[in-house]
């Protein structure tokens, strides 16, 4: 079970990194081109705003689970760092389990909302506006997997160390 979760996660993580790189590149390229078009070619790209926001929203939600993997999300450990090791470990597992429940709820509700609003189109590019929610769905599901992994196999503050490449 642990090996399966490890393997799945490292695969998903590397795909997530590729998606992130794409989103960041698109964001920079589109916003910079918009300025270039306006001042040099005296015209504008009418889809620039929507595309760059889409890339930004995707980059946020896709990057959240990678932050969980690295233990990068800020928290307060003044109290828990004073607990005896086994108590701290149990408390952390409970907290991560609650966060796991949150991510499952968010994933489920987002699927629901996306399905109900799928027919709404964006203004400048002809795709469903629910693609914004697809980022939330994928990111939260991925985050839930990482949290589940941490709940099942806590690694005493070191964080999980599965290979990513």
């Amino acid at each position: 079970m642990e090996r399966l979760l490890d393997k799945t996660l490292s695969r998903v993580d590397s795909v997530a990194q590729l998606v992130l790189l794409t989103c960041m590149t698109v964001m920079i390229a589109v916003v910079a081109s918009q300025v270039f078009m306006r001042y040099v070619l005296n015209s504008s790209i009418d889809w620039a705003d929507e595309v760059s926001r889409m890339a930004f929203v995707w980059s946020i939600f896709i990057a959240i689970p990678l932050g969980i993997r690295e233990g990068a999300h800020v928290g307060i450990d003044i109290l828990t760092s004073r607990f005896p090791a086994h108590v701290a470990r149990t408390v952390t597992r409970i907290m991560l389990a609650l966060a796991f429940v949150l991510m499952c709820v968010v994933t489920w509700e987002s699927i629901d909302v996306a399905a109900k609003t799928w027919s709404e189109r964006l203004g400048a590019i002809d795709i469903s506006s629910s693609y914004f929610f697809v980022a939330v769905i994928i990111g939260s599901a991925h985050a839930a997997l990482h949290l589940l992994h941490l709940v099942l196999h806590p690694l005493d503050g070191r964080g999980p160390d599965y290979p990513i490449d």
Partner: protein
Amino acid sequence: MSLIVIFLFLGLAAFGMPLAFSLGVSALGGLLLAGFDLSVLPPRIMNSVNSFPLMSIPLFMVTGELMLKAGIMDRLVDFANAFVGRMRGGLAQVALLSGAGLASVSGAAVADASALSATLVPSLKKQYGLGFSTGIVAAAANLGPIIPPSGAMIVYAFMAGSTVSVGGMFMSGVVPGLILVTVLMFLCWLIATLRGYPLVGEKASLRNIFYQLRRSFVVFMMPVVVIGGIVGGAFTPTEGAAVGVVYALLLGFFVTRKLKVSDLPEVLLQAAKTSAIVGAMIAYASTVTFLFTIDLLPMKLAALMNDITDSPTMFLILVALMLIVVGMFLESNAAYIMLVPLFHPIAVSYGIDPLHFGFLFVFNLVIGMLTPPVGVVLFVVCGITGVKMGELVRESWPFIVAMYVLLIVCMFVPGIVTWLPHALGY
């Protein structure tokens, strides 16, 4: 209901749950208790980060990192050395001045702290020992979010809504930032003289100064183009940040030629991950804010403040005291995201200039990054240089005190903060 949500949040956060999730779980609890349909969650979570202005956060991060990879630190250090190398505590002065230069192209204290620690501490510690060297670097890193551009100010302006603009916030930090550099350099001179640190640098020569000015010209043109463009109305902050990225790429590839294509993925990924941490907090805080608004909490809080005092000055002092405590325990972005939506409107209702309040708020929490037990800049400097936390704190307190003194001066002399942005039409 708001109280239950607040206590739930504090409880979860105290037991170590990351803040973004503590916010989300406590909002989830509040929604279930109040019998709301959970389908209100996804639109709030998504729409709160679906914002063009917010995009400037990762873009400015990329700009700063690319400028560093392009090797601007060498040029900044040489530049600073030509001017202040011969002063008492010369090398430490160089660190402060190049920290100020770095602050004008980067907007994050954490990034500045790691860059300054890695490049300057090895040579600083040979002259002054590890403690003083790291104290100086930590103080210099704190200039990052005060001198524009500033990630903290972008987050503040975003959370405060339409009453302050990013450009206005940027400009509010310029004069206090310059005063702070001067004060820190004076303190450094004082400490160096008292401890009898030797004069070591070469004499300043006009020829060298001109040479270094020419070499660092390309570095300082970046804030001129980017910040100048934003303030002048040529582009929005987000567009300005993207222009900065292009500028840094051109500089790194064609002028300094130190940037490699293989550096890019790491820079982009790091910026995405760091801004997602802020993004996650904004996204999940929006669910809590939703509950607060239904409960009319902002109005209740405003009424409570009004009962306590009707003096704007007293209000500023109370907020400042609260933020000093908050700054000791809470990461600063989390504090902006949770507290600005509550306190900024109250400040406006007291008739306080929004830029004045905004700057004091940011400056206070920026100093908080240097105050133990929780201070990100301290953590970064300790992590990179290996200095003990106690030693770093012992050597950096004079700088922290100086910053708080400047904060008080800015509180009572609003002109220091608001003169420049007002003169520019903000």
